[in-house]
């Protein structure tokens, strides 16, 4: 129980830190984003009513007489209500609506690709580590090249080769635009088809890291006494590898998920941009290009919450697979 309480506590603190960061970053930066925003809004024919201006001021900071702490409390209040302001680039849609439309695309694409890459990396890593001293050792340095390739560059090369060159995959987009989004086979098939290349990019670029981490742990674990005991017990090789060696070696990979998740998310934002994928990463860049500060911050918060949530789930899972965490503090 202590373990769970501590984890929940930690993620609450992290969430609060992210919210606070989001509050202070615009205030610490030079320039007056509110004016830029209001000008843009007026340009688009939006009415600049005082309430909208106040919402932006809370979000971005302005030279008002209101004490910072009051601004901060009102800001937290707005966040708690899910009020992230109105998007300028997609005016008059509220930021929350823009995010709600694009988030599922990213969740599915990045979520599935990350999971796939993690599983693939762990399984391959376990195998390479277990079969140490065979030709498989040669795979290890090869993965570093993949890990060092910029995501977007790889994505563009893949597009050039597989989409433009061979025509196997569509160039861009999340689905065939002639279809109406909905839960039907045509649409889902089209979405899967469009998602393959972006997913492939994410998997190729991130699998090396998982593979290497798992392989190194596997090498250390194979030297443990309990693995030797398992062999002496006359268990089948596959059983020793999975139940004794890999079962223990995977723990640090799971514990280190947080570190790697950040990289994957970062890479996928740019990947989405390359593929003009209708996800949250493309929206973030669109917001940046249009100085749509409200949308930008909203997306940052949502990405943060998603990453925190994923980490929390992984931490809870960790407690299930490592009985020792449940015992001590």
């Amino acid at each position, binding site marked *: 129980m202590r373990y769970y309480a501590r984890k929940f506590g930690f993620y609450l603190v992290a969430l609060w830190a992210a919210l606070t960061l989001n509050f202070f970053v615009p205030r610490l930066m030079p320039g007056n984003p509110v004016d830029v925003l209001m000008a843009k809004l007026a340009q688009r024919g939006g009415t600049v009513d005082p309430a909208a201006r106040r919402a932006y001021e809370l979000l971005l900071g302005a030279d008002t007489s209101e004490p910072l702490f009051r601004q901060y409390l009102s800001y937290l209040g707005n966040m708690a209500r899910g009020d992230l302001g109105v998007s300028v680039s997609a005016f008059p849609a509220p930021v929350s609506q823009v995010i709600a439309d694009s988030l599922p695309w990213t969740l599915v694409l990045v979520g599935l690709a990350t999971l796939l890459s993690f599983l693939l990396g762990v399984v391959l890593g376990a195998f390479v580590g277990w079969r*140490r001293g065979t030709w498989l050792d040669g795979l290890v340095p090869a993965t570093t090249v993949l890990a060092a390739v910029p995501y977007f560059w790889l994505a563009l090369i893949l597009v050039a080769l597989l989409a433009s060159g061979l025509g196997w995959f569509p160039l861009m987009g999340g689905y065939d635009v002639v279809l109406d989004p909905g839960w039907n086979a045509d649409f889902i098939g089209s979405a899967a088809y469009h998602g393959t290349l972006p997913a492939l990019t994410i998997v190729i670029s991130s699998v090396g890291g998982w593979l290497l981490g798992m392989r190194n742990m596997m090498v250390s674990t194979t030297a443990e006494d309990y693995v030797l005991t398992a*062999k002496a017990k006359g268990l089948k090789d596959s059983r020793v590898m999975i139940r004794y060696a890999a079962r223990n070696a995977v723990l640090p990979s799971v514990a280190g998920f947080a570190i790697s998740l950040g990289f994957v998310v970062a890479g996928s934002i740019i990947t989405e941009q390359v593929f003009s994928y209708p996800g949250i990463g493309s929206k*973030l860049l669109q917001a940046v290009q249009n100085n749509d500060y409200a949308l930008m911050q909203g*997306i940052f918060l949502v990405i943060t919450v998603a990453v925190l949530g994923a980490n929390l789930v992984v931490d809870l899972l960790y407690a299930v697979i490592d009985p020792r965490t449940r015992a001590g503090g």
Partner: protein
Amino acid sequence: MTDLGPATVAPPRGRAGWRSMLPRWSPKLGVGLGLIAVIALFGLLGPLFVGDPVTIRDLGLTPPGGEHPLGTTLTGQDVLAQLAHSTRGSLHIGLLVGVLATLLSALFGIVGGYVGGVVDEAFSLFSNVMLVIPGLPLVIVVSAFVPADQRGSWTVAVVLAITGWAASARVLRAQTLSLRTRDYVAAARVAGEKPWRVIAVEVLPNLLPLLASQFVFSVVYAILSEAGLSFLGLGASNSSTLGTMLYYAQNGFALQREAWWWFVPPGLVIALFGCGLALVNFSIDEIINPGLRDIPRRPRAEAVREPAPAARTDDDVVLTVDRLSVVYQVDTPVHAVKDVSLTLRRGEILGLAGESGCGKTTLAYAVDRLHRPPAEITGGSVTFHDRDGEDVDVLALRPEELRAFRWSKLSVVFQGAMNALNPVITVRAQLEDVLITHRPGMSRAARRARCEEVLRLVGVDPRRLGSFPHELSGGMRQRVVIAMALLLDPQVMIMDEPTTALDVVVQRGILREIMRLRDEIGFAVLFITHDLPLLLELADRIAVMKDGEIVEHGPAEQVHREPRHPYTRRLLDSFPSLTGERGAFVRSGEPAPSGGAR
């Protein structure tokens, strides 16, 4: 005292020490350093030799060749010249971030870890929060708020460093926490060193490989992130990097126009530089964890030989080891076990005594063919004489036969009871594993009954079956391991230092248990230890091993009363007797009255 005039004062050799911190040479390291050197030189010196990267010419998108070895861009700029300047820009940012991030992580990781207490808790919470907040989205947001004209390479570097130090800090903290409890840190404190000196002189040097590896990691992170930012148009405005080059290539539709020479080289430089750093990091990792070093390729399979079991000399013998040799096939092969012959009789406890490195554990592993490369059996035979009359040549068993042989005929209790149990699965699962594999037909209830039975045999409450190893005390764990060894009713049990890590009272209890079980069940024990007095009390016969050879072999009484080999005598003398004379131990200055004999 010897006269040590100034002439004889030798200047200390300072270099030698650093050598131990340097990575071992390997092809990987060579390739890595080569890549880094070539690219760094290209970035450093290239701009001096190539032309002006911004000169616009009237030959847009010329393919490589002639005057432009890497072709030109859309506006006719020379790609090679751009590449040289961009590489310099990227390296500049990479180094800057590497230094800043390493400093930050060292501050939060090392200082926090060493100081401990509230400072550590606060630092560690801070780094963990920074770690879970996704870096690049934050960088994008921050960059977007900074107007482009104020976004210099320093701004970008600082932002990248601030979002990129946390993972390293966590690694460094964990290592510092472990170093802090080392005895040499305590020894430095006892010597009267000041805290800052303990950190700087005693702790920090041992963190150097880790710091180096984290630094390399930050550089890769920085170059990749900066490339991403620039590609999005959010990079530093005053410098050109590989990222900005890609940005222009993308906006000039380089790929759509099939101008691969414009688009491919910048990405390739990043990938190769990152790859070079990663390869160097491999070698650094091998300093931190020597277990990761490359091992020689395994031979495909050990040559299967024809079974040639040794003949039974008499019905009483259960295991014959005949002229067994084991060699560690390293650069200069080490003969760990030399022509060792032993016989183990049914129901007897044969003690194998020797000091660390004498080959006793290697011998025990080889008997069950548990030795790992580079160890290799080079000669001799191991024969198991089954109760039912069959003689098994263990070294000739095929893999599947060997698997079936293990544990059902011969089980092993390993050194370090603490680690012989898998920490993440229950005691029951580890016991049942054996039955599921060796007795596939056994019912669930029967398996369970058998597990409970063996636990009762060693004096452990069967309710402990549901426990995980960490929930048991050291003595209890060792009992569970012995229970596990009893599961299949083996005829031979090899015990390698089974009680060494335990307190003397617990040890005594377990030894009594082993003797009682031996009397009741009648298995034979090969008992390996460095503790000769313990063997003298426990074993029926004793073999003393030194440098891979058995130097003395005989009944326990005889080894105790009339040791023949000088080494045995020396070992015996090394243990002052509890109640008798003190052996070779000299406390007051005069030698022991009666030499070694007691």
